[in-house]
């Protein structure tokens, strides 16, 4: 039992070196393939389709040789949110969402139709799928690779004045800060608990929880701003001037395997879009 180990539950933004074939993929190929899979998750509105997606996501986890329990751990903090979402959908959609659908359950003003039930299941499934895909992606990609990949993919857009390098840098810094902020939040929670703060009293009483979070959130924001400023100074001090004329220590090279991954992603997306799922 541990009320304070936050980092344990955050799988996004960590790198887990298992040396699998997913780890060795060219980051550009991995990004494109991941976008295809995310697209498939977003555009599949059927139960059978989502079952296929879940299987595909588990296969991706297996390919990355990442322990499933570890990949799923990121889900734990989101459980209350998911439950609230499901309850809202069940309570308030009623007949407004697809009025032709048959009524499954009725109690007072609460009306649950088959379409709403399906929606609830699919929303939850989508959340799990997205979490698995993004977790595997970040667990198998170093941040340097990610930056290079994003920058390289955005480079053609530079003619349209898209700041490719800067965007890539923003993404890297954002991801890099997730564990840092989690650690700091953990430290602050412990510090406030040590002087009588009552935190995490109940997972479900949201308003109380938010008010109890102020002693954590206020210093956390100050910390984030301060860290941001320190980072700026550190970059300035090392004469950072942006992407113009900048060379890189790692040079990306893609092989047949990388093209195969992209093709597999595209095929999967096409199959999910075109398949005539019954429900």
């Amino acid at each position, binding site marked *: 039992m541990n009320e304070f180990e936050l980092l344990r539950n955050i799988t996004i933004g960590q790198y887990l070196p298992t040396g699998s074939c997913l780890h060795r993929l060219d980051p550009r190929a991995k990004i494109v393939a991941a976008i295809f899979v995310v697209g498939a998750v977003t555009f599949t509105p059927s139960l059978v389709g989502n079952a296929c997606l879940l299987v595909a996501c588990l296969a991706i986890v297996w390919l990355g040789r990442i322990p499933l329990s*570890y990949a799923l751990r990121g889900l734990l903090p989101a459980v209350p949110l998911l439950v609230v979402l499901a309850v809202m959908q069940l309570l308030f959609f009623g007949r407004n969402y697809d009025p032709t659908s048959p009524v499954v359950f009725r109690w007072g003003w609460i009306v649950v139709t088959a379409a709403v039930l399906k929606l609830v299941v699919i929303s939850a499934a989508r959340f799990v799928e997205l979490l698995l895909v993004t977790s595997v992606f970040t667990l198998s990609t170093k941040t340097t690779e990610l930056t290079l990949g994003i920058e390289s993919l955005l480079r053609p857009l530079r003619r349209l004045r898209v700041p490719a390098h800067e965007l890539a840098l923003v993404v890297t810094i954002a991801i890099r800060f997730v564990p840092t902020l989690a650690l700091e939040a953990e430290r602050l929670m*412990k*510090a406030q608990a040590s*002087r009588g*703060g009552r935190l995490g009293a109940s997972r479900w009483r949201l308003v109380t929880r938010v008010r109890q979070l102020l*002693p954590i959130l206020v*210093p956390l924001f100050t910390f984030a701003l301060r860290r941001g400023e320190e980072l700026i100074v550190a970059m300035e001090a090392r004469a950072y001037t942006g992407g113009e004329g900048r060379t890189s220590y790692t040079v990306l090279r893609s092989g047949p395997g990388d093209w195969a991954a992209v093709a597999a992603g595209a095929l999967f997306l096409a199959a999910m879009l075109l398949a005539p799922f019954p429900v």
Partner: protein
Amino acid sequence: MTARDAAGDRGQPVSGGTVGRDAAGRAEPLIHVEDLWHTYMKGTPFAQTALRGVTVEIRAGEVVGIIGHTGSGKSTLMQYLNGLLRPARGRVRVAGHDLARPDVDIAAVRRFVGVVFQDPEDQVFEPLVGDDVAYGPRQLGCAPAELRERVRWGMDAVGLPFEAFKDRYTYTLSGGELRKTALAGVLAMRPQVLVLDEPTSGLDPGARRDLRERLQALRDRDGLTLVLVSHDMDEIARLSDRVYVLHAGAVVASGPPRDVFARADALAPYGLMPPHATQVCDRLRARGLAVRADALTIEEAGDAIAALLRGNR
């Protein structure tokens, strides 16, 4: 807790002062850590063992120093002292509360033991100094008069005069004053044991001496038991009655600072050096000069060298 335990002679944790006695008739320690193990990120690929069978006792009215290199496990151990971490392997008893029990009154443990983290100024969040110091006692549900009294006592104890500072904006304070605010916030909980992690790090020598004197006063005047976690040997040597040396998650030496620091060669493998004063005397002795070996502070070393010079004349 069983009925016998609850009604037993373990002492009332909050009122304090009625701690029971062990078989040998000695007062039971306020905090007793026994064969404690800790693994971070257990069950993940990042698992790392930070404590390996640590046993530590903290008795009423003592100042105990816990020293060790970065990564020795001292910060982890510190988090067990007020139940921020709960033992999965080993035992931790705080004022009769067994921290391994799921039904332990953790709020009472945290009232009994106040912990001040390293760089505590980060935890100040209220706009006004007085409000921030009042955060803890307010959570306890103190009546306004008592709340005011606790805040006044906490602020006075750290040297922030209550009337002058209570309505100041926290963002206008200096680093040293912010640290005192955070310390006052913990003291306002009126703990019996105060645990401080690197309390003087980053302070200038004047502020350092001031804080040291205030800590001493807390012990001598208010009867607080202090636990200092630090890698600053001079600091620990000056204040502690007893020290524990931690290395790679295990206690490798313990005892009064004079005994522990007298064996400089025993500390060296753990990346630790005795206080500067002790080192100076050691080197003088190595050159065949008869100075005392157990000088801990600059003053003691100064006296020893002065005595030597007088003797030579």
